[in-house]
């Protein structure tokens, strides 16, 4: 009898905590997100990232700050022992390594692997147009939402195997979990998000003097 009661309680609790979203709910949810973000599209956040890549035995953990202006401008500063600054102005993407005094310069939109970085950030922080590029399912857990995004288009499939998002009650992304086709995984947790306008200069980058600039994928 006690076991049956326990099962009933667990079942009820699960019903309360994880309520599946219908396609109409998902559509409605994204409509509200768009409404909320239309007035304040820019995002600034702190993040913590855990990357599991097949080349390494253990995940890499890093943290830093992020500035994002949709659809494709961002600045990402990573601290710690291996600091880096990644800046995209929408056309070019630079990754600056202060320890090595070197800069990598990539062109965006040429189906290069760095497009995945933009796509990941855009998907996580902008959620614009994701319904057309992903098949979306989700659950409502309390006041929060957990969404699973499966890419529809072959171009997205080349970047992601799946993309999980967790939104809080204010429709702000708290956590993303991205699995890439090769099995590599990146889990990112966002905190201290603000939506004040970001100056344009944030997304510009000039290599410091004495820095070696390379274009690993060509121009």
């Amino acid at each position: 009898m006690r076991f049956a009661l326990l099962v009933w309680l667990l079942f009820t609790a699960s019903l309360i905590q994880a309520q599946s979203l219908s396609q109409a709910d998902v559509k409605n949810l994204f409509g509200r997100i768009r409404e909320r973000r239309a007035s304040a599209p820019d995002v600034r956040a702190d993040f913590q990232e855990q990357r599991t890549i097949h080349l390494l035995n253990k995940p890499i953990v890093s943290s830093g700050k992020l500035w994002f202006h949709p659809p494709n401008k961002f600045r990402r500063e990573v601290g710690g022992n291996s600091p880096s600054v990644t800046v995209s102005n929408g056309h070019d993407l630079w990754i600056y390594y202060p320890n090595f005094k070197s800069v990598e310069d990539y062109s965006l939109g040429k189906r290069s692997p760095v497009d995945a970085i933009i796509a990941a950030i855009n998907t996580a922080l902008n959620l614009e147009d994701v319904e057309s590029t992903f098949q979306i399912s989700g659950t409502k857990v309390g006041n929060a939402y957990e969404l699973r995004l499966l890419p529809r288009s072959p171009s997205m499939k080349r970047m992601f195997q799946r993309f999980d998002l967790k939104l809080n009650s204010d429709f702000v992304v708290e956590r993303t979990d991205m699995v890439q086709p090769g099995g590599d995984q990146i889990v990112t947790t966002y905190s201290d998000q603000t939506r004040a306008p970001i100056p344009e200069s944030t997304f510009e980058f000039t290599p410091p003097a004495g820095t070696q600039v390379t274009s690993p994928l060509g121009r």
Partner: protein
Amino acid sequence: MRMSDLIASIMANRRPLVWLGVILIAIACVAVLITRIEIDSDVINMLPKGFRSVEGLKMFDRDFEQTRELTFALRCQPQDVDKLEEFAPTFVDNLRKQPWCERVLAGSPMETPDGIRDLQAIAVPLLLNLEPSSFEQTISILQPQKIRERLHRLRMEIEAGSPRPQFELGFDPLGVIGPALKPFAEANAIEEEQPLTSPDRTMRIFLVVTNQPSLSAFECQRLMREVNAFRGRARDGWDGGPLDVLVTGRSAYVSEISLSMRYDIVATLGSSVLLVGLVFFIGFRRWIPLFGMGFALLLSCLVALAVCLTVFGRLSMLAVGFCAILVGLGVDFAILIFGRYQQARIDGEEYQQAIATSVAKLGRAVFFGALTTAVGFLALVLSGSMGFSQLGVLIAIGIFFAGLFMCTILFLFIKPDQPPQKHDWVFGIVKKYVCWSVKRPAPVLIFSLVLFLGLSVFGFSPVPPLRFEASVRSLEPRNSRASQALQAIMEKMPTRWEPVLAIVRAHDAQELHDDWQKISAHWSELLKAGKLKGFSTPAALCLSPDWMEKNRKSLGQVDFQLTRETLGQTLDAEGFSRDSFSTAFKLLDDLQTASNPNAPLPSWRKQLPKGAGWWFLVDRYFAKDPLLTTGFATPPKPVTMHEQSEQLGRELPVGGVPMILSGWSYALAEMQPWSHHQLLIISALMAIFDVSLLAILYRDFRLWLIQVITLAFGIGAMIATMKALNLHLNLLNVLSFRLVLAIGVDYGIYVVLVWQKTRELEHDVAGVIKPVILAGLTAVSGFGSLGWAHNPSLSGLGVACAIGIFWSLVATIFFTLPAMAVAKPKIWNEANPPPTI
């Protein structure tokens, strides 16, 4: 006994014997045709000999594997681009399953794991093939300290978030593959400019190498039947909107051209015979002589084909036009001879006497007409083009026999007891015109002078110009699916202009390597100087036995055991997964094996898997004979002018390296003087021959001058009409001038010779003008019927000739005749004709 009397006697009294001779000739010709016929549908063989670039094109076409390549393209609507991307692998799988498919390239091999693995497989031979100092520098990365430093740095960069170290370690875990492939990558940068997906993603290209045993027309037709059957089911699994499956390539073209040739022969010959027959019947109201004329023409065609097959071994596609041209030319003789025969019969002569009269009166004109035409066409032998030469010889032989047969065999089809035509309304009209223009020539002469002067001024003036299309496209069949597919691909894909081919053949591997090293170095300088836009060469793939032996000795000094241990320890220390670096350990094993001085030198040809996409690149550079190679140099601008080809011819070669420069654009630019001047010079030479012959024949300056002016008027009016109708010249219809000149001379000879000799204007002049008009109309019909041909060059030739012959005929009737009446007046006296001489 005169020749005309002899012929008349034989035709009247020895008919069974003549029939026997005809049958024997026909059997012999058919036997030759059946046993030896081989059609050459290769457009390249229409180009002239004596140009190295043309020889290079033939070599590239014959010896390089890419001639067995078909290009497939899938084209979808813009809203279906994602579906197309998803469908592409299904399409490729289906392609690979086809029995005629040997290899498929669906994208850059660099973008696929298999492509990267294949490239890693050939790293060792390419590494050993590095220039020794570069090799020393590259191999130094295997020193323990350098391994530790590199992996530590890459680990730090991964931590910092760079995507680059992951690519680098995935592709080149030891750091030696990149430098080994650097020359290969540098030399092939030009290839990367041609992706296999259009920028708007609505088109995807798939390159397929087929396993067809030969490139013969029948083999290509067989292959394309299977390919088209595949196209019919290629959309299986596609769930989007309209999807076009396009195919182009050498086999597609050969198949279509050979099939269109069949259509062209049937359609043009059929319509030519029909139209000519119609004109003949209207003129003479007789069917059996018409049949006889067709038979004589067919026999002359058979004789010409049999002789040419015996001489040349095979016939060019140009010969397709031969039958219709010969019908157009040969029918003149038949009409003239039969017209005069009928006139004699109307005048009351008996069968044998009428034959003798017609041969006596017009045999000389037919002989000289055939001679000028034959010599005119034989001049094409000087063009240097196998196709043009064959056409010239074919028509020369054909026209000679046509003249002979029309003066003999034609009479086999005329019944001796057939009564003459009672009322000839065509002759009546012609007679009235001749009478009028002889009695009062001034009005006709003034009108025709004004008309032809106006047309000639317009025609010969440089503005507007008569355009010359030297493009190969002008020789492609009309509505060609292969051509349309190629155009659709060119529209969608980011195109670059065609590079210049540099074909190099060496005696051994070392010489080939040294040659390409020199060429690459020289072309690099041209690139820096802005004289080249880009280039790609097989330099990196041409192995140097000398360098490889030297580098192998250096490699033997590497302590591979220590390197292996250091790599393992460093991977552990930096936290790398050993499993992910298995290829690094494998590469160390391969390098150690290669360092063994007793082992054979590694070769990328043996190590590159048979199905690797890289073979598409390799096949561009290497012929079936690996010592025959080609490189590609892209000039700063498309090669369109002869001066550009001359400049490239000076700058691209390297001293001491035998090189053939080629490519379609380059070859056509190099041939511009030939196409613009050589054919014109030949035509001019033949025109000089014609006017000299006329001078000897007429021995009268005024008649000679009238004839020359008539020819000039005919050509001038022809050019004016072509300009007005926006018809362009191309490699084939440029011949039309020669043809029109030859036929125009014939018409002049018929009329002028009769005018000179006759004292019975109403009989002889009117009697020859009617056949000339009928002959002109049949020639216009014969050539005009070529307009039905699928091959635009052939149809262009037919239309141009029809226009030219029409104006030559008009000039002969409305200018030559009244001009002669003014220059050499004769009295029209129908009531009291003088006795026949």
